[in-house]
């Protein structure tokens, strides 16, 4: 019954807290009992003394009764645990060396694991900062050729109108803008969004309003919503800003709202969008967006109706897509919908990486556990006599086990507490490095309840792992042998020795697994760094220029600006070539478009071939260090109004023209794309545009493997307002002329900022940042594992030498030389390492398959790595065993033989 349970608890607590009073009352009652019994006997005629003796015999003594009653309450168990706790702490204090090493080892293991879990928690587990985030769905398009395509605006309108699954549907895409109001001009990143975007996310503005549905229409005026950080930093958090106009991208925008701090809270703060503008004015400025075949970067985001699942919504939108395909066969054939939860879209591929890292650091924790288990075993050996005496005096196995476990629990708590501190410090450090690794929400690492619970759970599990085995072993009833022994453990030593050896071999195996993983990643990275991107990336300075169309409305103005800018930049001493290109290789963007070859039968709608377009200007071939294979580059005669020309890469030529010389065959041919007919005048060598590893581009869904490239002059394609300027230097460090470049741009227009100034080498290295982070962490874990394993084997061999002092003394007395003793000890250690290495290699080969996606041009069973790792292990193990081995050779046979 619940009440009796409560009464039980209450009584126990009362007894605990008022120990003295409860004890006195019981004592009084028991004494009364005994006295009354004695009186009765006396009344019957027995003497007082005899009566007391009889009573004690028949009824039990006061002390025994008191103990019985006290121990029958649940609170006595608690008291016993509390006593054991205090005793354990005292015992640990008396062995500071053991305690310090054990706690530190545990802290390292638990701390590292908790830190990695903190990252996993921030990026993968923590719910998105929106109401009911599980209802948020990211929607993109897909067709026969691409699994991940941005949304065409007219398609979105039809989905929004005809769907039955979404409470609200919206589109948005990233945009840049130039803020010139009140201060130095600065390029900002923000978003163009439909009015429903904020409804979908469910966030109200901090000030003012978000967009009205009317602002999705073409006639809408330019309004802008600011982020909280922009409002504070640039506008002093002034509430009067609402309703005022600011100059943005050379146009007047009316500020209508400010979003709350932290919105949207997905990207790290420095990459987060700072402003939002409605779709309507964009549609007016770029009517091409209303074409169904224009996939220019829109992302769809919707909120499901309650009770609707992802599958139902997918089926619903696919149904609409099919009816659109029937209605618009030219543009929508084969077009479908690609849907995933918003969380999945944000997290992307990082989940696999993070779980692998968590598993890796878990191995480090296991190694730390094994080390501490060995320490506990060693310590327990020293306590054999004490335990044996206690067993002889009546302690049960359960009692001894409990005491040992409480001691381990104290160690575990100490390790967890210190580990939590280490984890917190590590997360601080990592949070700074994270945004560069491209991990979303990586700057929001915090010790929230999930992380704390994980640390507590890890501490509990590790305590059980390192404590239970040795405690079980130590509490076994073998006291007969031990009491007879003269202090050295013999029979009991064998089982313990085997356990120790097994633990060390396991540590070695786990360390090997991590070392192989790190080794494979290192080899992949080295191979990647040597990949030829198809152009000369050294000595190349790059920066972006984005001309506001309000300031330069006419193409002639933009082209004139660019021409003059390039000319001026060419005058900088040391510059050998100047060009411009968009999208830049390794710029993280691409711009694919379908095309047809003039003179060939038109392909079926929906299966047109695509090519990646790049708009270029100036001497781009020389500036980028590309190789012209046939034909010519662009020159001054290729400008607006003259015949549109294009340069294709060799894969384009080989793919579409046959014969002995496809490159030459391509020259003079014509292709049609973006509603323009281009004549091919040159063929260049293929250039890598996204990642050094082509598989990465395919995995990102942004391109098929080896999509061919087409280069067209900016003046002819009309995309002439945005360019990444590239300056080639003869020899020197490109950054040396950065300020000179800025000066030249300022000369043309002091209000025009340049953005994202980097050398090309920096950009390429940046594309490897994610891999590099994983590599650094894996290598770190592997190194930690190796150090812990080395400490482990040192400890075991060292202890073994101490135990075998007598035996070594005998050997030396019988004539063994130092060499052979050295060999004996080293051999023992190397055997352990060998067993561990063998097991580890087998495990690594089995697990290697899982990591194949992270490797580049390296097999998961790469022989070089599989050979190098054991060698490294033997080297380190040998070093760790050398000191005890040398100690063994110094054993004085006389002292050793004299005995204990």
């Amino acid at each position: 019954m619940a009440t009796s349970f409560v009464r039980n608890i209450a009584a126990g607590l009362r007894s605990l807290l008022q120990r003295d009073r409860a004890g006195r009352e019981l004592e009084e009652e028991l004494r009364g009992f005994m006295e009354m019994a004695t009186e009765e006997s006396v009344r019957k005629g027995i003497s007082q003394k005899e009566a007391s003796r009889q009573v004690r015999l028949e009824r039990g003594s006061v002390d025994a009764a008191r103990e019985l009653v006290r121990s029958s309450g649940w609170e006595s168990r608690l008291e016993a645990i509390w006593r054991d706790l205090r005793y354990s702490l005292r015992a640990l204090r008396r062995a500071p060396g053991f305690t310090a090493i054990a706690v530190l080892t545990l802290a390292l293991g638990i701390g590292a694991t908790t830190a990695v879990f903190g990252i996993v928690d921030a990026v993968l587990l923590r719910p998105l900062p929106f109401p009911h985030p599980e209802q948020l769905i990211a929607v993109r398009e897909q067709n026969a050729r691409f699994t991940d395509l941005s949304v065409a605006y007219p398609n979105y309108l039809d989905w929004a109108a005809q769907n039955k699954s979404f409470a609200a549907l919206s589109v948005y895409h990233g945009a840049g803008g130039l803020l010139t109001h009140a201060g130095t001009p600065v390029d900002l990143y923000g978003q163009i969004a439909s009015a429903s975007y904020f409804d979908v996310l469910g966030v109200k503005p901090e000030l003012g309003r978000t967009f009205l549905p009317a602002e999705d229409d073409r006639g809408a005026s330019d309004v802008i919503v600011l982020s909280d950080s922009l409002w504070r930093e640039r506008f002093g958090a002034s509430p009067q800003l609402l309703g005022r106009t600011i100059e943005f991208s050379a146009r007047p925008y009316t500020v209508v709202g400010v979003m709350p701090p932290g919105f949207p809270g997905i990207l790290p703060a420095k990459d987060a969008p700072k402003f939002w503008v409605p779709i309507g004015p964009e549609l007016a400025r770029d009517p091409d967006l209303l074409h169904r075949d224009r996939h220019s970067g829109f992302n769809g985001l919707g909120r499901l109706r309650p009770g609707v699942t992802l599958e139902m919504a997918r089926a619903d939108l696919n149904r609409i897509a099919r009816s659109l395909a029937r209605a618009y066969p030219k543009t929508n054939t084969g077009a479908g919908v690609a849907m995933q939860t918003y969380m999945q879209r944000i997290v992307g591929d990082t989940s696999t990486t993070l779980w692998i890292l968590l598993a890796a650091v878990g191995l480090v924790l296991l190694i730390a556990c094994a080390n501490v288990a060995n320490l506990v075993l060693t310590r327990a050996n020293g306590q054999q006599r004490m335990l044996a005496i206690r067993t002889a005096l009546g302690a049960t196995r359960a009692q001894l086990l409990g005491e040992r476990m409480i001691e381990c629990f104290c160690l575990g708590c100490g390790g967890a507490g210190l580990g939590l501190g280490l984890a917190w410090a590590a997360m601080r450090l990592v949070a700074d490095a994270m945004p560069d690794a491209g991990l979303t929400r990586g700057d929001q690492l915090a010790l929230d309840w999930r992380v704390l619970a994980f640390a507590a759970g890890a501490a509990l599990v590790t305590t059980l792992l390192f404590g239970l085995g040795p405690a079980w072993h130590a509490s076994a009833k073998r006291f007969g042998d031990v009491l007879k022994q003269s202090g050295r453990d013999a029979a009991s030593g064998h089982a313990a020795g085997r356990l120790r050896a097994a633990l060390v071999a396991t540590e070695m195996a786990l360390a090997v697994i991590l070392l192989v993983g790190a080794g494979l990643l290192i080899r992949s990275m080295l191979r990647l760094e040597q990949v030829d991107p198809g152009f000369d990336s050294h000595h190349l300075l790059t920066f972006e220029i984005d001309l506001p169309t309000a300031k330069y409305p006419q193409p002639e103005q933009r082209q004139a600006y660019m021409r003059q800018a390039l000319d001026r930049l060419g005058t900088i001493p040391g510059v050998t070539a100047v060009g411009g290109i968009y999208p830049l290789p390794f710029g993280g963007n691409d711009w694919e478009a379908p095309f047809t070859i003039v003179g060939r039968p038109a392909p079926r709608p929906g299966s047109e071939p695509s090519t990646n377009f790049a708009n270029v200007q100036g001497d781009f071939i020389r500036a980028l260090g590309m190789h012209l294979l046939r034909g010519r580059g662009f020159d001054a005669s290729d400008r607006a109004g003259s015949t549109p020309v294009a340069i294709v890469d060799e894969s384009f030529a080989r793919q579409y023209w046959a014969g002995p010389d496809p490159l030459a065959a391509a020259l003079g041919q014509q292709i049609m794309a973006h509603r323009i007919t281009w004549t091919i005048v040159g063929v260049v060598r293929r250039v890598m545009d996204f990642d050094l590893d082509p598989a990465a581009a395919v995995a990102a869904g942004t391109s098929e493997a080896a999509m061919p490239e087409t280069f067209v002059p900016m003046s002819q394609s009309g995309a002439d307002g945005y360019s990444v300027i590239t300056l080639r230097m003869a020899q020197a460090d490109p950054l040396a002329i950065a300020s000179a470049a800025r000066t030249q741009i300022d000369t043309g227009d002091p209000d025009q900022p340049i953005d994202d100034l980097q050398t090309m080498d920096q950009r390429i290295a940046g594309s490897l940042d994610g891999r590099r982070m994983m590599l650094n962490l894996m290598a770190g874990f592997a190194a930690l594992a190796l150090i812990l394993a080395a400490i482990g084997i040192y400890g075991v061999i060292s202890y073994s030498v101490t135990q075998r002092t007598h035996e070594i003394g005998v050997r030396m007395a019988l004539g063994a030389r130092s060499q052979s003793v050295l060999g004996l000890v080293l051999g023992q250690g190397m055997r352990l390492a060998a067993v561990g290495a063998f097991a580890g290699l087998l495990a690594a080969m089995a697990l290697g398959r899982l990591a194949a996606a992270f490797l580049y041009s390296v097999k998961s069973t790469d022989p070089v790595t599989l050979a190098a790792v054991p060698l490294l292990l033997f080297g380190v193990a040998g070093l760790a065993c050398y000191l005890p081995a040398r100690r063994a050779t110094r054993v004085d046979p006389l002292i050793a033989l004299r005995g204990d």
Partner: protein
Amino acid sequence: MAEKPGEVVQGTLDMLVLKTVALQPTHGYGIAVRIEQMSQGVFRVNAGSLFVAIQRLQRAGLIRSEWKDTENSRRAKYYILTELGRKRLKSDQRQWGRQAAAIARILEAS
């Protein structure tokens, strides 16, 4: 059953204590004496088991206690049956009766 002749099994002792207290509120020694008397010497209760049983019954809310003076002007803790205890005693008695009858039937079967 009992380990030593004369000792009472735990669950049964609870029932006997309840019955004793039901007849008349008494202190610990009084309960022991009464059980001995009523069982005509078959059961001798030792102090430890008795007071463990009393603590159990008290914590379950079946009896409550009061410090009072005895006839000899000695202070003792008197135990009184609660309503809950009364109900429990009735059900325990019923159950015991059923069990005893069943055992008797088995033992007398030929």
